[in-house]
């Protein structure tokens, strides 16, 4: 119903200090905005108003602000001058309020009952006169009737009680301190989406998990992408969420890590063997029936053998022939493999893959090249730079560090570039380092056009200077009209003196040259009568080198002897590649088309110690020793790089026989 509560005429605050009642001053009612926040008003009155007919004008003051507060606020503002100031106070009269107004009726003297009225008036006047001390009139108290009480029911809005709980953790607090910086970017879109439930904001702060719909249980820092998803409304279904996730880079990285973990599980025994760690039996995996537990036979030494650990191969490389392999100089587990058909009938564009043992099924980097890759090498000073030489004579340096690998520089614009396949490419560190610690390194190539070039980067391109021309040395009887240069197939720099290098040529000659003398060879070693495929200095014994050739032989030379010290041949096949073992000075490996041979000069100089035949139909093409472990990598014509572990290779007759655990 209607609101019938009687309005009070004034509000007396009994709690007001009475001492102030005597004071009266007028505040500027318009002063300050403090009028709104005061509930107590102190009224100070000059005099109480009398109940009776005399209604005197009274001064009605109502200080709108708390006296005390006002005084405090004013304390600072009152100065000496202000105190002496004459303040004018204006007092004004309020309107008179009449409480009882019974107007007198006037009767004409000439009216009929005028006499009765006059009589009555006179009686009344006498009564008033006699009132005091008259017996007729007795003072009697009366009780005012209490008015009817009326019940009014009021209903307020129901108070909703909500239980909330929060768990505070150390990282939650840390995130809260960090989040203002991150929230700046989220702030603007958040303001627009104010109508969304607050629940999302609270629970994302790491509060206790709510299982209610729509609550987010993402702990940690405020996820702006989560907010976006929520803000986009419930129309965002799982499909688009999935798309968002799939596109993120972080997901790519997570997939990479997961793939490596899975492969780690799959290849664990092989990788442990590679690292020469003991292979633990997994007690959870049930032993398949039929396997015989092989115990180590400690009594009789077992013959040397190779065990195949795994093979780097993927569908990209299948069918291509491995032409060269190189280890990274800084990370000895990163392997670069160049693929290219060496017979010119099949002109497939080349491919370079960088493999890591962490993932033997897919290369870390894949680089497509314009033409078949014939050789490659990693740089010393910039370990992420890979120089690749190709069949069309061009030389390209790639940077393998980033996923979107870019070709750093190419030799296609160089005028002096090779016009024939680059058979070998090598970065060499030079000994002279007058300034600072970093050794200078230079890039050398030898190509089928008979030139050895030294390359350097200038003006965003490669340029080269010719180091040597491989002139044909022929007898005076024959006069060759065609070309005076003989194709160079391989070269190697002396491990200690980088200005001396050996070059193997198509004619079977090996020349020793110096980088300071570009006109003449220092020495020529003659023995082979077919193209020399590979030359390699021994890293452990000074001045000894090996050469292998298509004439089925391997020759061991000493630098100052013009005739080979030893010659080896085992099969009637061209020997494609040859490498010294980095650990043992008498061991070297050789690959001819049909098999892998490991020779140990300590045991036998007539036969290889280990022979591993190639898989049928596949030719082995290149060889590389692992630097840290006793493993050998063999590349073949099917694009596979197989890792073999050398077992039971005795190091010298007198030393202990190394036995390996199964």
């Amino acid at each position: 119903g209607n609101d019938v509560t009687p309005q009070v005429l004034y509000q007396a605050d009994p709690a007001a200090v009475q001492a102030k009642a005597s004071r009266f001053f007028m505040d500027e009612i318009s002063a300050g905005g403090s009028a709104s926040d005061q509930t107590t008003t102190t009224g100070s009155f000059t005099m109480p108003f009398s109940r009776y007919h005399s209604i005197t004008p009274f001064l009605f003051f109502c200080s709108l602000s708390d006296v005390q507060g006002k005084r405090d606020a004013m304390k600072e503002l009152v100065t000496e001058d202000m105190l002496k100031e004459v303040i004018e106070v204006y007092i004004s009269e309020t309107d008179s309020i009449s409480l009882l107004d019974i107007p007198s009726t006037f009767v004409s003297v000439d009216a009929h009952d005028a006499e009765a009225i006059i009589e009555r008036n006179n009686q009344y006047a006498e009564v008033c006169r006699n009132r005091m001390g008259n017996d007729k009139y007795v003072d009697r108290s009366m009780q005012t009737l209490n008015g009817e009480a009326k019940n009014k029911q009021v209903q307020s809005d129901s108070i909703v009680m909500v239980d909330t709980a929060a768990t505070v953790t150390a990282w939650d607090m840390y995130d809260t301190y960090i989040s203002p910086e991150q929230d700046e970017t989220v702030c603007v879109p958040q303001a627009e989406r104010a109508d969304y439930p607050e629940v999302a904001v609270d629970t994302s702060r790491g509060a206790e998990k709510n299982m209610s719909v729509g609550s987010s249980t993402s702990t940690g820092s405020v996820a702006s992408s989560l907010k976006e998803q929520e803000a986009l409304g419930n129309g965002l279904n799982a499909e688009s969420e999935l798309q968002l996730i799939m596109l993120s880079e972080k997901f790519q990285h997570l997939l990479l890590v997961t793939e490596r973990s899975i492969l780690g599980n799959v290849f664990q025994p092989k990788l442990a063997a590679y690292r020469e760690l003991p292979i633990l039996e997994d007690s959870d995996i049930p032993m398949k029936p039929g396997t015989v537990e092989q115990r180590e036979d400690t009594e009789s030494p077992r013959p040397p053998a190779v065990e195949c650990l795994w093979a780097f191969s993927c569908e990209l490389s299948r069918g291509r022939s491995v032409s060269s392999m190189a280890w990274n100089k800084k990370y000895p587990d990163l392997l670069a493999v160049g693929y290219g058909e060496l017979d010119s009938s099949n002109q497939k564009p080349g491919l370079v893959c960088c493999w890591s043992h962490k993932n033997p099924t897919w290369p870390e980097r894949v680089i497509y090249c314009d033409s078949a890759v014939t050789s490659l090498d990693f740089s010393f000073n910039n370990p992420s730079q890979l120089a690749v030489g190709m069949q069309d004579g061009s030389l390209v340096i790639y940077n393998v560090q980033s996923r979107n690998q870019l070709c750093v520089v190419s030799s296609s614009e160089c005028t002096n570039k090779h016009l024939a396949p680059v058979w070998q490419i090598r970065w060499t560190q030079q000994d002279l380092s007058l300034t600072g610690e970093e050794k200078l390194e230079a890039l050398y190539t030898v190509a089928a056009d008979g030139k050895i070039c030294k390359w350097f980067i200038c003006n965003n391109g490669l340029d080269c200077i010719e180091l040597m021309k491989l002139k044909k040395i022929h007898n005076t009887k024959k006069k060759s009209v065609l070309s005076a240069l003989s194709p160079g197939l391989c070269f190697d720099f002396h491990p200690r003196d980088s200005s001396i290098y050996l070059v193997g040529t198509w004619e079977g000659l090996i020349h020793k040259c110096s980088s300071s003398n570009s006109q003449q060879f220092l020495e020529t070693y003659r023995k082979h009568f077919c193209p020399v495929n590979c030359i390699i200095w021994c890293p452990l014994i000074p001045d000894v080198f090996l050469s292998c050739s298509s004439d089925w032989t391997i020759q061991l030379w000493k630098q100052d002897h013009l005739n080979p010290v030893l010659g080896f041949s085992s099969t009637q096949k061209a020997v494609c590649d040859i490498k010294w073992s980095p650990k043992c000075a008498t061991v070297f490996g050789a690959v001819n088309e049909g098999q892998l041979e490991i020779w140990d000069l300590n045991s036998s100089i007539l036969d290889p110690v280990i022979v591993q035949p190639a898989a049928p139909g596949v030719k082995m093409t290149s060889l590389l020793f692992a630097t840290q472990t006793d493993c050998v990598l063999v590349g073949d014509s099917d694009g596979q790089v197989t890792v073999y572990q050398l077992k039971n290779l005795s190091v010298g007759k007198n030393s202990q026989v190394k036995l390996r655990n199964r």
Partner: protein
Amino acid sequence: MLIEETLKRIQSQKGVQGIIIVNSEGIPIKTTLDNSSTVQYAGLIHQLVMKARSTVRDIDPQNDLTFLRVRSKKNEIMIAPDKDYFLIVIQNPSD
């Protein structure tokens, strides 16, 4: 796409039983297993990841969980968590 290829490769690795991608609310959004297993894995592993992450961060708030592997008798569960989602791979290495 690179990610699609990687997922296919993972799926074809030896012993991989299933891959599940779960969003931050614990709802699986992509899976190669059947529905009931997926829901079960998602719900249980979600709680485990939250607990693991909370543990790591309590010790050092600047640290965060990057990978979680649970090796059991029969298989191994690998969980790669991120802010908004996590990836679960179940592998049985002896297959």
